[in-house]
């Protein structure tokens, strides 16, 4: 699972005010204090204690708007949604097919490390080292967050829908593998994410099942496109292959892609999430949240992408366009991201966001900071709203779409 949906949080709170029990799962504490390492969103500090000591210096969690999050949902509603007794229209064939595909377990023997990892980690020095550490941390956190959510869903749905439950469990198997692999990568930098602690200490963002579907679908598909793009770019430009983990991305991201397919099937089994005007508005909203989050995040980390030979903005636009095309196979509406105006809007958001971050780093008194932020927040918000209101593209699975009868295959 990729991390690109953090922006969704504050807005979802706004839209579902009654549902505020994020720490229901695993007795999570609402206000976490310390954690071995942070998964920060702000640009990496030039040199911190984290890269020095084996145990690492405990740091405050620096959660910000764009930090990868942990998710929880209304498990009872999930149980109802996939109860085969209640919901007789579930497309069992698709779920049975998916179960077979997940049981196949293409990557059972894929995640095996070699000595290249340690050697590459030792060679990474200076600012690039810190950037890589942060990349591993964030990726590990994102994968691990998928593991927790899927694991719990697998457990909770066992009785009402054993097939769907087993698929969730198999997906949590994949996520655990990915997270473990990334965490081992961190060990080459003499670091480790304390995942047990993370489980308890992180804040959980609550999403209704419907929103979990939209958000995780996008998250998995955009994860696929990010990984495969990096993989294929490095395949073509091996001189930038500075860390061996990228060589694993081709097989790895096929898992992400399949996970996305599963959410596609879940949504198809609940057509009420796909077939009305509200579904269209939510679809566009989630697309925008995910794309904007990624764009703002990545533009703060251009050093990482440039370090592996990519142009950050071009990379992101490619990923956004491809993810949007993929998403158009299931969401009833998507954004017109191929309209050049969309990118211009994203670029203006980056400018406002960077100014916002810069204010945070000044020594001004906090009320002055707040005053300075107001116009920037306003311009960021209006840009986001304008992007949301751009004329959308009608889309959807051919199993539902109104345009299907006229389609030539």
């Amino acid at each position, binding site marked *: 699972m990729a991390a690109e949906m953090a922006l969704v949080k504050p807005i979802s709170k706004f839209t579902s005010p009654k549902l505020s029990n994020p720490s229901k799962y695993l007795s999570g504490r609402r206000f976490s204090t310390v954690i071995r390492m942070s998964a920060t969103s702000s640009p990496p500090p030039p040199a911190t204690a984290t890269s020095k000591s084996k145990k690492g210096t405990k740091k405050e969690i620096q959660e910000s708007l764009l930090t990868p999050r942990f998710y929880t949902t209304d498990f009872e509603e999930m149980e109802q949604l996939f109860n085969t007794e209640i919901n007789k229209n579930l497309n069992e064939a698709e779920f049975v097919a998916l179960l077979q595909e997940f049981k196949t377990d293409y990557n059972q023997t894929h995640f095996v490390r070699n000595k290249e990892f340690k050697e590459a980690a030792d060679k990474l020095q200076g600012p690039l080292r810190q950037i890589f550490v942060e990349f591993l941390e964030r990726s590990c956190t994102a994968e691990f967050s998928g593991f927790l959510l899927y694991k719990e869903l697998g457990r909770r749905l066992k009785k009402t829908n054993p097939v769907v439950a087993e698929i969730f469990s198999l997906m949590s198997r994949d996520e655990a593998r990915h997270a473990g692999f990334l965490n081992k990568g961190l060990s080459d930098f003499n670091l480790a994410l304390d995942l047990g602690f993370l489980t308890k200490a992180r804040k959980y963002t609550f999403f209704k099942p419907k929103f979990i579907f939209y958000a995780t679908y996008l998250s998995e598909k955009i994860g696929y496109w990010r990984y495969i793009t990096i993989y294929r770019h490095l395949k073509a430009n091996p001189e930038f292959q500075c860390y061996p983990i990228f060589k694993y991305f081709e097989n790895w991201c096929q898992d992400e892609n399949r996970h996305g397919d599963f959410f596609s099937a879940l949504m198809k089994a609940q057509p009420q999430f796909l077939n009305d005007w509200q579904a269209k508005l939510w679809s566009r909203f989630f697309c925008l949240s995910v794309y904007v989050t990624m764009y703002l995040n990545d533009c703060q980390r251009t050093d990482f992408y440039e370090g592996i030979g990519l142009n950050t903005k*071009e990379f992101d636009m490619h990923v956004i366009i491809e993810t949007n095309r993929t998403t158009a196979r299931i969401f009833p509406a998507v954004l017109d991201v191929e309209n050049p105006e969309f990118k211009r809007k994203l670029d203006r958001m980056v400018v406002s966001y960077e100014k916002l971050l810069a204010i945070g780093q000044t020594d001004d008194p906090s009320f002055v900071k707040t005053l300075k932020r107001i116009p920037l927040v306003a311009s960021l918000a209006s840009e986001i709203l304008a992007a949301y209101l751009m004329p959308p593209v009608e889309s959807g699975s051919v199993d539902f779409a109104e345009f299907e009868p006229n389609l030539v295959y």
Partner: protein
Amino acid sequence: MWSVTGALTVAVPPTAAACRPKPFLVSSSFPKQTKKLHLSPPPLLLTSHFSSSFKSAATSVEQQSDKKGESTKYHFLVANAKFMLDEEEHFQEQLFERLRYYGEREIEQDFWLVIEPKFLDNFPKITQRLRRPAVALVSTNGPWITFMKLRLDRVLYDSFEATSLDEALASNPTTLEFDKPKNWVAPYPKYEPGWWDTFLHKVTQESVV
């Protein structure tokens, strides 16, 4: 997986001629035995109607061996060649992934690509909605085709029975050439045309004679 692709692009110049099935290529590894794949025992907790679907999936795989005279069910997805072979690049990755997996587990191949399949003549309802040339993904593994339908979405599904692979996968010679994309912005090159050759059925020696 990349070594497979790499070798292919060296051996096969990316010309249109390379896209045709090679009728004289003899495959020594053709159906000898069928191993049951991926269907390790059905999960314990399956409800009754799920487990029946599972059994039928297992049966369709078992039927795969080329016993003379016995017909086998083939499931297929079809769409225009441009969509299948040129635009959907993840499709290429999936097929090679599956081939790699079959190789690792020594499982007999049960999926193929067919360019302009002859069996389409029996499906007028499909052909009237199909741009040509068309390409089909054919497999004896029904659930896998169901999964691939979920993935590809913009494809048409049906199935048919045939008594031999050669009959099932017969195709009309066709030249495939795709225009280069006008606006290729990806930070990597497209997959080389001709990658699909690996998945075309090679006619068995017997039927060539």
